[in-house]
Structure formats: structure tokens, C-alpha cells
């Protein structure tokens, strides 16, 4: 029997892989998709719409498991989805938290849904402030892809005319809650923006997907698919073409090469049988998420590529950036004390945002370069966390918790680290995962610039809260440790110079013309915006470039 050769092998089914799979299948290419985990069954695996007392540990999970948990999303509601089997290591001095969802759809099953476009100010940041290099494309070039993605997935927001935040194609925004109007008034006084976030949560039915029912359980998965995830939005379309074969529990090990050093397929481990399996294709798309993609490339050593495939520049795994997250300030709004409870939590934290307002007119007006955004949150959340900061016990304590329940607010910062030579990942020289594959080793520390943003945000958010009539109760002691945001970027950066960049401006690797990268690893840095919508837009563009190359005969069609 002749061995089967697919047109394209896609590693990963998250935002980047999912978009590539759909786009390639709809263009008539035969695709084999590999996913490291299993396919979730929403009925069984998502424990949404459950009250905490319906859960064994009230949603908190077994304390023994919690001790090795990878973050806030890894809990009793979603534990079926998170990978605890594949370890990673950290270099001395590095702290790294790395939640990995290897289920089909990856982190899009539970993501935060904030969906702001990158702007010219991000893509040309280096020209503006002299640090690092510009992106190899203009905003004008990527803008139509954003529009198509927004129309595909549905993003609720408003036109805001902000220099750092190009507007797009939006569904009606979320309504402001009391706390939004109050904080908006505070922001106005301080001179910072307070606007509806760009939220990929459907405020009306969209493209066959139902509108949100505002249960507030997005991060435990959605039972009706009212926010974008690849299992609900992209994979069904790909499967309808009959051009997709999706292999689950298929942990990519390395890219196979032919006698010219070009990609010939992928070797993976079937996690059920622990056997190594080879699958062949005319082109390969790596979209396993930033660090995993780099790990696959670095593990793809051959006589042609002794340092890993597509790594003649030595840049695979380098230039790692991440979002600094943390609660800059928390406190409460006396105006809301004693009020009736209100469903404030219906979109988690993404109803409103304070989009980047720093360094807009002059790139050096602040003590740091670039900028950050802030996500305010508060009101009646599911659990009165503030109670532990109150004094006393008994009736007065119980009464005070009830009175304060609608009033807490907090400000979460999202600030980009700067590219540096000392932040990167490589392969651990000794440790291998249970399947014999060398694991990732992290080297990362927050830089001075991003820590200045953190300090700056504490000041401004406290000013905003006070100007809104609120009481400041505390400042964040320290930001979350790196990795927490799940927004790592930059291990396979795109650029025109093959000596300095891993892929060209289309996400096609310089070294290997039939090898493409479709996730946040091609981004030059992480900007102040979240990554998912940009991964979708860039993956769409890369996928169409790949299809063009097939049409031109660069990769032969089956």
C-alpha cells in the first residue's frame, strides 16, 4: 500500500491551528490535524452551570491537585482539559507558570475573550521609540484580515477612535453596570479612558451561533457556543468539507524532512499506545502555541538541521515576551455598599477596559516606553473574596459581608514585556517527558520597563478609584509570575532578514519553504493587547499565503 500523503499536516487545534485547518480545508486541501490531547465532550467534561455545592470540593478542586495546579483556569470545573503530564523546567532565577490546555480547541475553550486589534502604533513601535525592530507588515495589510475574523467570530464593542486601538466590525456592546458608570466618572476626572471592551461574546445571534445567556460561566466553557472557540466555530466548518482528518492524543514530536531538508511530515506519539507514528504531508503548519511550537522545531534535529528545523538564524525559542498581569489596586465603592445584589459577573472581567493611554502623542512622555491596558473588575462576583480582609466575626461580620458584597472593585494590568536576549526558551539538556521528548526550559524575568508600568498603574488606578469616590484598600504586592497570562509570544518571530528571523512576513519559515508557523510565536512582541484575535488574523493570512503557494505549484496538490 502506498503511503498516504496529505496536503498539509497541522500541529495544534487552538486559535492558530483551528483557523489554518478551516481555511485550508475550505480551499480543498486535504488536511491531517494533530492534537496533543483528546476531544472534549461538553456534556461530560465541562462542568458549567453547576453550583459550588454540587461539586466535591466546591469548585476549588482537591487540595493535593491544587498544589500542582497551573493557574486560575485549572480548577474542578475544567480539570479534564488541562495537561499535568508533560513537565517543563526553569533556569535558575526564573519563575514560570505555564497552563497548557491540550484538549481539542486548546485555550479557546476557556479564553478571556478580549479581542482588540494591534494598531500601527504597535507594528511600528520600533520606529517610534527606537527599541527593537518594526513588524514586517503594515496595519493596512493586516486590517482586512481582522475584519474578516471579527465577522466570523462576533466581537461586541463600540467605535472608539483611539490612536492605539483601531476600530473594527462590532456587535452591540455590553451594557454598562453601575460600577462602570461610577468608574467611568472617575476616569474622566483623571483623564484616562473607560470604554466597553472588545469582547468576543455574542450580544446577539451571529452566523448561526446563539446569543449569550449571560450566565457568567465563560471560563468553565460554554454549553451553547456563544463565544468563539475552535470546536464550536471553526472545526465544524472544516469537518463539513470532508477534507479533515483530526487525530487526537497525537503529541507532535518532530517535523520529518526529505532528502532536501524540506518538511515531509510529522512524527508524533500516540498517547494511548505510546507508539511513535509518522504522518506525511506536502506542507506542515506548526500551531502548537508559542512555546510548544518552538519545542517541536528545536526537537526536529536532522543532518540538514542540526540545531532544529528552520533554525539557521538561531532564533527559534528566542525573544520570548509575555504579558505582566497583576492586580494593581483593589478597594470598594461606598456608593454600592448596602445596595441590592446585581449580576455584575456576566462577562467575567471583560465588560469594560481602560485601553492604553500612555505614550500616545510622544513615545517618550512616560518613564517607560510602549504602554499597557487595564481591566477593571468588581461588583457581585460569585464569592465574596474581600471578606478575608474584614475585621472581626459574628453578626457584625456577617452583616458587613452582605453590605459590601456589591461594592468591591479591582484593576488588573496587562503590560507587555520588552524583547530581550535573556528571555527565551530552549530544550532542557537532560529531562524528557514521559514519551521521551526533551522538555522546554524557561529563561525569563520581568524587565525594568514593564515593572515601571506596573508601578505606574498602581498610581493611576488608585487615582481613578479615589476620583470615583471609592476607597483604596490595597496595592498589589507583586505582579503574577510570568506565564500566568497565557499570552506568550515571539519564539519564531517574523521578519524579512533570514539571518535574524525565523519566518518571513507571511509566517513561512525562511529555511524551509513548506513549513509555516500559525500562532503567537511569529509575533515580534506582545503589545498591550490580548493575542487570540491577532493569532486568528495572522493565521488566516498565513493560511491563504500557503494556499496561494499550492496554486502556484510551489507545494504540489494531491
Amino acid at each position, binding site marked *: 500500500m502506498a503511503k498516504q500523503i496529505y496536503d498539509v499536516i497541522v500541529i495544534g487545534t487552538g486559535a492558530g491551528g483551528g483557523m489554518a485547518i478551516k481555511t485550508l480545508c475550505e480551499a480543498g486541501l486535504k488536511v491531517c490535524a494533530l492534537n496533543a490531547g483528546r476531544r472534549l465532550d461538553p456534556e461530560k467534561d465541562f462542568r458549567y452551570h453547576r453550583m459550588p455545592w454540587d461539586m466535591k470540593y466546591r469548585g476549588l478542586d482537591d*487540595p*493535593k491537585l491544587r498544589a500542582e495546579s497551573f493557574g486560575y483556569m485549572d480548577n474542578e470545573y475544567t480539570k479534564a482539559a488541562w495537561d499535568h503530564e508533560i513537565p517543563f523546567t526553569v533556569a535558575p532565577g526564573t519563575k514560570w507558570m505555564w497552563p497548557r490546555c491540550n484538549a481539542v480547541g486548546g485555550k479557546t475553550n476557556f479564553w478571556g475573550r478580549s479581542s482588540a486589534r494591534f494598531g500601527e502604533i504597535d507594528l511600528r513601535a520600533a520606529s517610534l521609540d527606537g527599541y527593537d525592530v518594526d513588524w514586517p507588515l503594515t496595519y493596512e495589510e493586516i486590517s482586512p484580515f481582522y475584519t474578516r475574523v471579527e465577522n466570523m467570530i462576533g466581537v461586541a464593542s463600540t467605535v472608539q477612535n483611539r490612536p492605539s486601538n483601531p476600530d473594527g466590525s462590532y456587535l452591540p456592546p455590553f451594557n454598562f453596570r453601575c460600577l462602570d458608570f461610577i468608574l467611568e466618572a472617575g476616569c474622566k476626572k483623571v483623564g484616562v479612558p473607560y470604554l466597553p471592551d472588545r469582547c468576543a461574546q455574542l450580544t446577539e445571534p451571529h452566523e448561526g451561533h446563539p446569543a449569550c445567556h*449571560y450566565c457568567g460561566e465563560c471560563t468553565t466553557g460554554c454549553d451553547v457556543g456563544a463565544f468563539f472557540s475552535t470546536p464550536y466555530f471553526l472545526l465544524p466548518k472544516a469537518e463539513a468539507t470532508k477534507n479533515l482528518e483530526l487525530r487526537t492524543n497525537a503529541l507532535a514530536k518532530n517535523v520529518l524532512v526529505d532528502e532536501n531538508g524540506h518538511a515531509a511530515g510529522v512524527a508524533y506519539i500516540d498517547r494511548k499506545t505510546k507508539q511513535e507514528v509518522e504522518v506525511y504531508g506536502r506542507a506542515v503548519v506548526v500551531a502548537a502555541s508559542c512555546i510548544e511550537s518552538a519545542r517541536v522545531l528545536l526537537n526536529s534535529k536532522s543532518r540538514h538541521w542540526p540545531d532544529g528545523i528552520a533554525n539557521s538564524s538561531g532564533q527559534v525559542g528566542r525573544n520570548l515576551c509575555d504579558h505582566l498581569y497583576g492586580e494593581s489596586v483593589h478597594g470598594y465603592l461606598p456608593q454600592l455598599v448596602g445596595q441590592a445584589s446585581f449580576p455584575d459577573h456576566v462577562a467575567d472581567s471583560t465588560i469594560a477596559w481602560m485601553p492604553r493611554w500612555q505614550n500616545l502623542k510622544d513615545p517618550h512622555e512616560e518613564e517607560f516606553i510602549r504602554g499597557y491596558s487595564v481591566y477593571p473588575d468588581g461588583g457581585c462576583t460569585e464569592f*465574596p473574596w474581600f471578606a478575608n480582609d474584614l475585621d472581626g466575626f459574628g453578626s457584625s461580620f*456577617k452583616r458587613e459581608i452582605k453590605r459590601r458584597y456589591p461594592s468591591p472593585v479591582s484593576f488588573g494590568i496587562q503590560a507587555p514585556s520588552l524583547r530581550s536576549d535573556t528571555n527565551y526558551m530552549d530544550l532542557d539538556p537532560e529531562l524528557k517527558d514521559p514519551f521521551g521528548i526533551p522538555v522546554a526550559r524557561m529563561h525569563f524575568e520581568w524587565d525594568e520597563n514593564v515593572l515601571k508600568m506596573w508601578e505606574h498603574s498602581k498610581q493611576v488606578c488608585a487615582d481613578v478609584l479615589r476620583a470615583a469616590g471609592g476607597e483604596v484598600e490595597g496595592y498589589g504586592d507583586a505582579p503574577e509570575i510570568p506565564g500566568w497570562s497565557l499570552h506568550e509570544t515571539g519564539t519564531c518571530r517574523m521578519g524579512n532578514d533570514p539571518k535574524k528571523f525565523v519566518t518571513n512576513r507571511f509566517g513561512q519559515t525562511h529555511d524551509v519553504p513548506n513549513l509555516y508557523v500559525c500562532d503567537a510565536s511569529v509575533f515580534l512582541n506582545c503589545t498591550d493587547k490580548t493575542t487570540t484575535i491577532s493569532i486568528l488574523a495572522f493565521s488566516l493570512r498565513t493560511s491563504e499565503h500557503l494556499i496561494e503557494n499550492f496554486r502556484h505549484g510551489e507545494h504540489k496538490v494531491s
Partner: protein
Amino acid sequence: MVERLTEIIIPNDGTPGAKEAGVAEFIDFMVASDPDVQYGFRTGLTWLNVQSERRNGKRFVELTPEQQTSLLEPLGFKEKARLGEEEGVRFFRTMREYTVTGFYTSEIGYKELDNPALRFYSESPKCTHHKDDPEHARVAQTRA
């Protein structure tokens, strides 16, 4: 003893408290599942009984409610704190955290706060005040 402590922390005072919500049972379960905190709980309860014997000649559960409260007040209220009782303060803080967690993740705790979780809406819930409502106007005046 754990049940009595939870009841003192969140009492039934017209609305059901920690006892009705079965918080002690929840704490037993969580502590049993978590070897890391068991030592702290055991020594904390012992500490409280030693204090109780020293001041009242009886174990904690044998005291009158008034005696129990007066033993706990220096642990729970910052302004009443007594020197040398730091261990008790730490333990009481942990006990209070577990009680709060157990109570406000119970059905009774959700009713107590009128917790809006898992209600469904056809439109995203919005502020019901008019934009010129005194509620928001007051905000603007607070710090002009």
C-alpha cells in the same frame, strides 16, 4: 468544637448561619484532603483549649457562649488583640477563612448574599439608574 467556632464566626441571627449550612462538615472534608494544613488545625484547636483551661478552668466547648466569645474576641478583632496570642490569631484567621469559604459556597450562603450566579438573561444586565440619577450624581460630587 469546629462546628461551634463556625457558628460563632457566622451565626444564625435571623438568617441561617454556618451551622445550618453544614460548614463544619465541609471543613472536616477539606482538612482531611489536605495534609499540609492538618498540623496547623490540630495545634490551633489545642492552643484554644489550653487558653480556655487557663482562663476558665474548662475546655472550650464547655464554656458559656459569652465566655467563648470573650476568648475569641482578642483573636478576631484587631483592636482587642493581646500580646502573646499571635498563634491564636493566626489559627483563628485560618478558621475564619475556611468558614467564609464553606459558608459562601453553600446554597444557604448564596441565598444570604442573593448571589446572582447562574441566572440567565436575554440582554446583558445593565445599570438601572437613569444617567442623571442622584446615585451617579452623588459620585460626581464626592471628589470634585
